C-alpha cells in the first residue's frame, strides 16, 4: 500500500513540477506591453494582513490615478508573503516571473530584508512603503524607504515626551521577540538616558504571551508611571488599552507608527483609545487638497479611513512616477536600466507627498521627513497643538 501511495504522490509531484515550469515560462526582463510593471509583496493574509492590504489598496488608487492622467502607464501586482521570509522570497520570484521592472518591496521588515537582498542582487529598484528596519537598506544602493527607520522613531519619541513634558515617570512595554518593537525600545531607552527622561518600569511580552498584560500594567502602576510608551503594533496595544481601562489605569499612552490602524480594527471600542498619543507621518484629517482627495477615494472604495501604511504606499507610487517622468523611463527598458535611472533620480529629487513635504533620500536609501504626533480625539486623529 505504501508503495502505491508513493507512486501516486510521485506522479503528482512530477505533474506539479511540469505545471510550475510551463506556467512561469516568460522572459523576466523585457516587457512588450506599454505599461511599466510594478511588483510588490506584502502580507495580504495572516496576522499582519491589515498592513499589507492597506498598502495594496492605496497603491491601486495611486496607479489608477496616474493611468487616468494618460502619459506614463503603470501596471501593479501584489503577491502575498504572509509576513514570512521564505514566502517572501517565493512571492518575489513569482513577481520576477511576471516581469516586474520596479518593486514596491515588501510591507513588513522581516520579508523586506530578504526581498531587498534579492532586488540588490538582481538589480531591480526597490522602494518600500513601510519596512522600517535599518538593515533593509544597509549596504544596498538601490533600496529606498518611504518610512522612518526604527531607531529614528525611538529617539524622536523620547525627545517629544521630554520636550512637551508629557510625562516624567515613563513605563515601557515592548515585544522582545520582534525586531520592530525591540529596536525602537533600545533607541528610546538610550536616548531617554541621555536627555534625562526617567524610565521607571520596563516590561516585555512575546508573540505567545500577548493575550494578557495585567502583570506588565500592574508593574507600571506600582512604579507610579504617568506615561506608558508602547512601541508595538496595534493588536497588542488594543488589548493593553482595554486591560488598562479595566484596571482603572488612566494615564497617557504614547504609541509609534505601528499603533496606526487601531481605530480601524474590527471590534475595537474606539473610546478606549481616547487621549492616546502616537507618532505618525500621516494625518488623515489634514486639510490639504491631496490628503482630502486620497482619503475620500479610499473611503469610497474600501469603506475605511486610510492609515499611515496606506499613505506611505500611495506616496511610493507617486515618487516612482515622478522619478520615471524626470528620468524619461519607458516601458520597454529592462529592470536593470530602470534601476540605474531610479537610483540617480531618487538621490537627487525632492518629493512632496501625503506623508511629508520636501522629502529627500540619501545614498543610504533613508528618507528625511518630519514625524508629527497626533492625539486620538472622538475616534479620530487630531493635531497635538
Amino acid at each position, binding site marked *: 500500500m505504501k508503495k502505491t501511495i508513493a507512486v501516486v504522490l*510521485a506522479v503528482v*509531484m512530477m505533474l506539479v513540477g511540469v505545471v*510550475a*515550469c510551463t506556467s512561469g515560462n516568460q522572459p523576466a526582463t523585457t516587457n512588450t506591453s506599454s505599461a511599466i510593471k510594478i511588483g510588490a509583496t506584502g502580507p495580504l493574509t495572516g496576522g499582519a494582513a491589515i498592513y499589507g492590504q492597506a498598502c495594496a489598496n492605496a497603491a491601486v488608487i495611486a496607479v489608477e490615478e496616474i493611468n487616468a492622467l494618460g502619459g506614463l502607464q503603470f501596471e501593479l501586482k501584489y503577491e*502575498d508573503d504572509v509576513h514570512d521570509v521564505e514566502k517572501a522570497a517565493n512571492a518575489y520570484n513569482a513577481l520576477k516571473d511576471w516581469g516586474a521592472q520596479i518593486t514596491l518591496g515588501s510591507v513588513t521588515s*522581516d520579508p523586506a530584508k530578504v526581498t531587498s537582498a534579492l532586488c540588490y542582487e538582481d538589480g531591480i529598484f526597490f522602494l518600500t512603503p513601510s519596512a522600517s528596519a535599518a538593515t533593509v537598506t544597509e549596504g544596498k544602493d538601490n533600496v529606498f524607504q518611504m518610512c522612518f527607520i526604527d531607531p529614528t522613531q525611538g529617539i524622536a519619541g523620547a525627545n517629544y515626551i521630554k520636550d512637551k513634558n508629557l510625562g516624567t515617570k515613563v513605563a515601557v512595554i515592548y515585544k522582545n*521577540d520582534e525586531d520592530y518593537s525591540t529596536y525602537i525600545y533600545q533607541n528610546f531607552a538610550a536616548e531617554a538616558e541621555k536627555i534625562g527622561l526617567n524610565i521607571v518600569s520596563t516590561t516585555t511580552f512575546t508573540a505567545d504571551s500577548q493575550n494578557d498584560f495585567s502583570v506588565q500594567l500592574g508593574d507600571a502602576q506600582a512604579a507610579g508611571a504617568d506615561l506608558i510608551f508602547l512601541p508595538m503594533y496595534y493588536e497588542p496595544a488594543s488589548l493593553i488599552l482595554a486591560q488598562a481601562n479595566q484596571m482603572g489605569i488612566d494615564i497617557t499612552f504614547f504609541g509609534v507608527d505601528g499603533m496606526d490602524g487601531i481605530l480601524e480594527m474590527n471590534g475595537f471600542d474606539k473610546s478606549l483609545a481616547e487621549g492616546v498619543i502616537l507618532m505618525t507621518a500621516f494625518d488623515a484629517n489634514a486639510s490639504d487638497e491631496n490628503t482630502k482627495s486620497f482619503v475620500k477615494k479610499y473611503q469610497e472604495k474600501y469603506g475605511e479611513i486610510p492609515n499611515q501604511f496606506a499613505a506611505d504606499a500611495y506616496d511610493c507610487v507617486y515618487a516612482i512616477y515622478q522619478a520615471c517622468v524626470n528620468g524619461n523611463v519607458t516601458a520597454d527598458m529592462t529592470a536593470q536600466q530602470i534601476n540605474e535611472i531610479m537610483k540617480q533620480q531618487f538621490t537627487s529629487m525632492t518629493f512632496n507627498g501625503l506623508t511629508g513635504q520636501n522629502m529627500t533620500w540619501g545614498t543610504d536609501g533613508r528618507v528625511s521627513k518630519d514625524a508629527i504626533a497626533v492625539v486620538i480625539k472622538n475616534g479620530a486623529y487630531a493635531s497635538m497643538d
Partner: protein
Amino acid sequence: MEQLKKKFHLGKTNREKIFTFGIVLLFFAVIEILRGTGNLSNLLKGQLVPICAYVVMALSLNLTVGILGELSLGHAGFVSVGAFTGIVTATLLKPVVPQTWLVLLISIVAGGLTAGIIGFLIGIPVLRLRGDYLAIVTLAFGEIVKSLITNLYIGVDAKGLHFSFINDNLNLLEGGKKIIAGPMGASGFPKISTFLAGILLILFVLYFLYRLLGSKMGRAIKAMRDNSIAAEAVGIHLTRFKLTAFTMSAFIAGMAGTLFALNFASLSATKFNVDMSILLLVFVVLGGLGNLRGSIIAAGVLTVLPEMLRSLRDYRMLAYSIVLIAIMLLTNNQRLMQWWTQTKKDAKKWFAKIRKAKDGGEA
C-alpha cells in the same frame, strides 16, 4: 532479468532503495534540463534549496517518529540550532576560505554537530519519558530554543567572537559585524546554499539512513519501537539506542537547518516555531511513518503546492488545506486501496492472458 538480479544481489529491499535514489536523481536531472533549456521559472528556482532542506528535515524527523517511534513536536528547535550555527560559521569562514563549497560543507557539518550535541544533551533526560510526555517536552524544547536565540547577540570583530544575552552588550570594535542581533535575527550572511549541495545532502542522508536501517543498530531500534519489553528482554540497551537514534536525528536536522538558512539573506528565530515542527510532522505522517521515500515525496509536494496555488490569490491557503485533507483521506481510504490492488491484479491477469494467447498463436 533473473540473471541480472542475481548478479547484482537485487533483493526487494535493494530495488526499493534504488527506486528511492532514482526519484531524487530524476528530480535533479529534470530540474537541470529545465534550467539548461531556460524553462525553469524563477519561482521554482527559488524554491529548489528549500525543497531539499525540507526533504532532509522530513527524513530526519522520520528517524525519530517513524523508525524510533517517539513523537517529537519540537524538531524545528534542532533545525534552528543548526541554522544559526551554520550562519555564524559561514560568516566567520567566508573571508578566510576562498572556496565557497568548502565554506558550505564546513558550515553544514558544524550546524549538524551542534544540533547533534544539543540533541544528545536533551535526549538524556527526555528519552526516559514515553509517548505523550515526550511529545510535550519536545514541544517545550522547541519553544525554549526559539526564545533563547531570539535573545542572543553574537558579533565578531578584530578581537574575536563576542556573545551577549538579552541586552545588546557586544561593544564591537570599529569594523566589527553583528552576526545575530537578537530579535532582529541574522542578516547579511553569505548566501551560499546551492541546489547541487541540497541534492548531495539528500543522497548522503538517504544512504546513511538505509545503512542504519540494515545494520544491527537499526534492527535493534526497530525492535525497540515494535515491542520495547521484548527488545529489553533480548538484551537491547533501550536508553543507549534511543539516545543514539535521537542524536543522529538531531544531527541531520541541524545539517538541513544550515542548508535552509544559507539560502536566505536574513533569518530570525521566530521562523522556526511550532508551525514548522508540525509541518515537518505532516510531511512524515503523510509520507508514511518509517517510509523514507514517502517523506521525500510528501515534503517535496507540500513545499511546492502552496506556491502553485498562488493564482488563487486569497483562497490559496483554503485550497491548500482542502488538498491536504483530501490527500490524507484518499491515501487512507480502504476501499480505494482495495480498488487499486484489484485493478492491478486484473491488469496482471489481462496481460498474462494476452501473452498466453500470443504464445499459443506462435506455437
